[in-house]
């Protein structure tokens, strides 16, 4: 790192990320301090934040062009890992997405997300200045489609779902020939009903139907949305007070240390805290997109755009679940939810964006 690079380091984004990690620790403490089964969660999360920050530093230090050079290797490794999971993966909460590494479990798909962002960025950067024609589009679809299919197979619909906007936004920004677009739209319109009948499992359909009509399943997913909305709504303007939320303390809120962590903040800190957190996520997303606009070259643009899109969309999906705007799919709130893989991968992604941003003036 050269001093000139450090001068263009995006401190505001970095501090926002650090601050969010702090909020995560505080909220996790609130969600778990009364539950002896979950003691030690905060310490573990702090450990993973430390690991993640180290990874961020690594991703930041190496020029992103150099990093992009590893893409084919990382991509292949990702496919291997996902393939391995299908046969030997450890099943947690119905998903074969976990790799057992000694005492801990790792979720490779979180890292595959970053690799896929790099892969898409590297590939589009190589297509030059043209809009995407049939061939590059097809290539992109295959590059993205294979890991996507493997993740869906686990089945981890939530993670897979966040990969789709990465591809779509990349294709949108890169531009697509009108002819191709029309035909694609037609195919999609045809494929959806067919997929509904053939691919989606009953419980997945049920989730989507429950989203449309929450009263359908008041004990299952409908119950979760209802309790989440009660938690959020009861927070009011200023909240029930830190550590005082009844929805979370008395276990009405499901998965409050992971997917539903936002509801804990909203219940205890009210609109003041929850609105600020939403603003913070928007801010971080926008800083990534700004990094994309300001990037020195096409590779930088697509790396930052890819991660910004992934981070923003995943945040929107998770927050949308909380307030009942999006069906319940198991997906964590990046930087907030408990989980080592997600934390480390997300921090690595920010490292990538900070990297691109820092090197925007370098020739």
């Amino acid at each position, binding site marked *: 790192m050269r001093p000139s690079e450090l001068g263009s380091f995006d401190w505001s984004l970095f501090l926002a990320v650090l601050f969010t990690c702090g909020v995560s620790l505080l909220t996790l403490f609130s969600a778990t301090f009364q539950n002896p089964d979950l003691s030690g969660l905060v310490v573990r999360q702090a450990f993973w934040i430390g690991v993640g920050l180290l990874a961020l530093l690594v991703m930041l230090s190496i020029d992103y062009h150099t990093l992009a050079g590893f893409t084919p290797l990382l991509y292949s490794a990702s496919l291997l890992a996902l393939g391995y999971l299908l046969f030997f993966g450890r099943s947690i909460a119905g998903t074969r997405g976990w790799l057992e590494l000694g005492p801990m479990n790792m979720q490779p798909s979180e890292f595959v997300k970053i690799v896929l962002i790099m892969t898409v960025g590297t590939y589009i950067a190589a297509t030059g200045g043209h809009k995407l024609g049939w061939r590059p589009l097809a290539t992109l679809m295959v590059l993205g489609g294979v890991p996507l299919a493997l993740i869906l197979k686990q089945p981890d619909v939530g993670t897979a779902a966040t990969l789709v906007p990465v591809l779509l936004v990349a294709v949108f920004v890169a531009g697509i020939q009108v002819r191709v677009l029309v035909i694609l739209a037609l195919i999609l319109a045809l494929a959806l009903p067919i997929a509904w009948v053939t691919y989606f499992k009953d419980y997945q359909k049920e989730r989507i139907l429950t989203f449309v009509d929450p009263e359908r399943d008041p004990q299952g997913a409908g119950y979760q949305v209802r309790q989440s909305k009660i938690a959020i*709504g009861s927070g*009011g303007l200023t909240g029930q007070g830190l550590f005082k939320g009844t929805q979370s303390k008395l276990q009405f809120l499901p998965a409050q240390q992971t997917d539903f962590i936002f509801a804990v903040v909203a219940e205890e800190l009210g609109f003041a805290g929850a609105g600020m957190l939403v603003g913070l996520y928007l801010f971080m997303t926008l800083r990534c997109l700004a990094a994309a606009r300001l990037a020195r070259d*096409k590779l930088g643009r697509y790396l930052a755009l890819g991660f910004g899109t992934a981070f923003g969309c995943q945040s929107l999906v998770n927050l949308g679940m909380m307030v009942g705007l999006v069906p319940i799919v198991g997906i964590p709130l990046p930087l907030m939810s408990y989980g080592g893989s997600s934390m480390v991968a997300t921090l690595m992604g920010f490292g990538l964006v900070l990297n691109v941003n820092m090197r925007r003036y370098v020739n």
Partner: protein
Amino acid sequence: MALREHLEYAEKMRTQRRTRVVTVLFIAAFTAYLGTLWYLQVIRGEMYRTLASENVLRTVKVPAYRGNIRDRHDRILVSNRLAFNVYMDREAIRDREALIHFLAALLEMEPDVLRHRLETTRPRPLERRIVLVEDVTLKQAVSIEARQLEWPELSIEVEARRSYPHGRLSAHALGYVGEISEAEMRSSAFAGDLVGGDIVGKTGIERSYETELQGSKGARRVRVNSRGRVVEDVGLDRPPRHGTDLRLTIDLDLQRALEEAMAGQAGAGIFLDPWTGEVLAMASSPAFEPNLFARRFPAEAWNKLLSDPLKPLQNRASLSSYSPGSTFKIVVAAAALADKVVTPATTIFCPGYAVIYGHRFHCWKAGGHGSVNLEDAIVHSCNVYFYQVGKMLGIEAIARFARRLGLGEPTGIDLLREAAGLIPTPRWKEETRGQPWYAGETISVAIGQGPLNVTPLQMARMAATLANGGRKVTPHLVYRGDTIEAAEASRRHGEDGFTTRTMTALRRAMVGVVERGTGKAARVAGIKVAGKTGTAQYSSRSAGVDADELPYAIRDHAWFVGFAPAESPRIAFAVFIEHGGHGGTTAAPVARRVLERFFSPLGEESASSAGRGSRDMQVAAPMVGEGGPDASL
């Protein structure tokens, strides 16, 4: 080169432009989220806050104790005791079989009973604890509590349970309690917040004063977690209103004397204060053990009681009606005197039979009683005299007078269910059988036969009406502090007393029954007892055969009704012995033993308030009213 640079420049511009579009989309989406958040938290916040507190705050009911029931001297008849129930948290079960064996050994139960109970409670929500075993001993409860660490799924909870310290004593009047039924929960008679598992009165006083005895539950607010488990006691919202204590008119000593006298015999006995209608003792024999019903699952006790041939659950005092037999002759005699069909001096010749309407009716005494007046006819229970008088009176006059004395209609006692009995009339026969009344039937009715049916309670009320000079009182079990004055004030319009002449004649005749007639077994030293025996034919096979030689089930029913002392009555009674044979031999001795208790120095003391009213009163009979022409004679 230029083209490439141009392309790259165009690409950069396009990318930046489109990235701005993506940026705007994100801003829009996040702003929409902020709006949603504002809507949920600030605009609908109040509603969600309510929902959140509904989630965690539960109102639990605080049980109210059922009221105690005491006798007229404030001695406890029914109270509550503490019972220890074993509760089980099924979520915490680790080793079901080991647990069952531990409990079965400790409680000396069959393991299968426990398994069955666990099986039947399976459908209930798992987080709700179940009552596994009811009413264990204190020692067993302590043993279970002491092993809390070993068996954390078990806990002991204390609840109030109905307790009848005198067991079977007065069981039918008191009644029993039980778990509220589905039908009762829907019924408006059981008002209040009663839920399944709650204990309510089923019969007797327990049932008829259910509202007073039940009280109403209090409410306590607790904080619960998502599994419904209480985490904090917020406080008492409303204290329970415990049930009201009831004071009965029953005298425990008299009740005991009555039941002891009736022991081993089926039947009923009712002893009333003739002035107020207060029930001093009321028994139906055999009785049941009401403590058995205080449990939640008394299925075995039920089946045993239901299959008992002596039907201990049947309240013979007020819910069963029987033929009155010769005791009915008093009704006919009173009617004849009142309607001036005869005078006390009128004599009728009894040759042992009478031919009426071309039909030969027999007297029970083969050779006949010779020439008898009303007193002789009652003392010796002469049938022929009453055949003739009945013929003169006609069925309508007999029926009117029977009702006048309270027969064939509910007495209005403060128990919910009561048999009406039956006094036949031509109209009744027309309506129910579609046949005309035959004049010959009147002759049978005149001696207490035919389709006549009365309850022992009605007979006791009749005795009270005769004792007080003709005023119908309403028998009641709950003490109201009645005085004769109050009773007098509440007397119904148009119900006037008998004339002195009627009363004197009836009293003399009934005293004669005890002094020298069929009721000698009821004589009490120093007290003039007025009474009338009755032997109600139960089966035609019993005619003219000694009761002892007949199978129990077809023996005649025995009656003895009366009052004492004859001149200033303080107690009126009816004793009924099912298949007892002759009234004089089985029913009269029961009355005697109760009367002896009532008039004994000890009895005097304990009966002081029972007799208070009548002692203050001088010889009250006859109580002649201003009177319409109908009643005065």
